[in-house]
């Protein structure tokens, strides 16, 4: 009678041998890309700068969406550039998906900003540090996670010095 352990052992052996026949290292994900990391870091800097701009501009006309459209325009364009660059690399679908989510979050932030200017009055038209904290933290987290995946592509063995 054939035991499950025996079958498992045979399948493992077959699996190993099939890989052996390929005769080369297996690659399932795009390699680490310095430019992607640089572009992401630059986009993160834009968000950090905009957050500080809005904090300092609170209660002034500069806090309004209509005064900040240049930020949204540039951020959308930079994310589009990043998406095009990432799309040029093979086996990079996960990173491309993440960039799409980042752009969606930027659109959400823009919609919130626009909405406040349209329906609120006075200082409430601004996004205060407290009300926009979750949005910027969420977007920062999104960028941070895209970066973590990019850095993981360096294929450094866990537990060893990086």
């Amino acid at each position, binding site marked *: 009678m054939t035991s499950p352990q025996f079958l498992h052992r045979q399948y493992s*052996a077959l699996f*190993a041998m099939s890989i*052996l026949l390929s005769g080369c290292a*297996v690659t399932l994900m795009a390699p680490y890309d310095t430019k992607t990391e640089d572009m992401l870091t630059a986009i993160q800097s834009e968000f950090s700068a905009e957050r500080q701009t809005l904090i300092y501009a609170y209660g002034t006309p500069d806090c309004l969406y209509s005064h900040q459209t240049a930020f949204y325009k540039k951020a959308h364009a930079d994310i589009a550039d990043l998406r095009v660059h990432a799309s040029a690399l093979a086996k990079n679908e*996960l990173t491309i998906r993440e960039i799409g989510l980042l752009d969606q979050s930027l659109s959400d932030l823009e919609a*919130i900003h626009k909405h406040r200017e349209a329906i609120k009055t006075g200082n409430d038209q601004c996004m205060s540090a407290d009300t926009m904290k*979750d*949005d910027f933290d969420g977007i920062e987290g999104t960028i941070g996670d895209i970066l973590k*995946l990019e850095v993981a592509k360096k294929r450094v063995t866990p537990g060893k010095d990086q």
Partner: protein
Amino acid sequence: MADLDVGDLASQVAGAMIGQLAAYGSDAESYAKAEAQKIAISIAHIGELLASGAIDEYEAKLKFDIQRNATRTMLTTVEGIGIIAAEQAINAGLNAIKGLVNGALKFALLP
């Protein structure tokens, strides 16, 4: 293949693979837990802002969408780390038996 024992090779490949997967699995789990905590705090804060009237339902939905996108990105990164772990495990398995196989065959089948 007279000098190569399939069972022994499979055992060495499996040992190397499991070592890689265990190391990455532990990293991915702690990473996911930390991110989940951050997102839970953000969602609770959105609830407070809505309750206090600082934001309306339209904004709350958009804010939640940003958090959901952050969660999706985190899970995608964990998925990607898992794929890289699988890749590393396969290659570690091959590397573990490289010397044995190439020596036995007197030919560099595994580069």
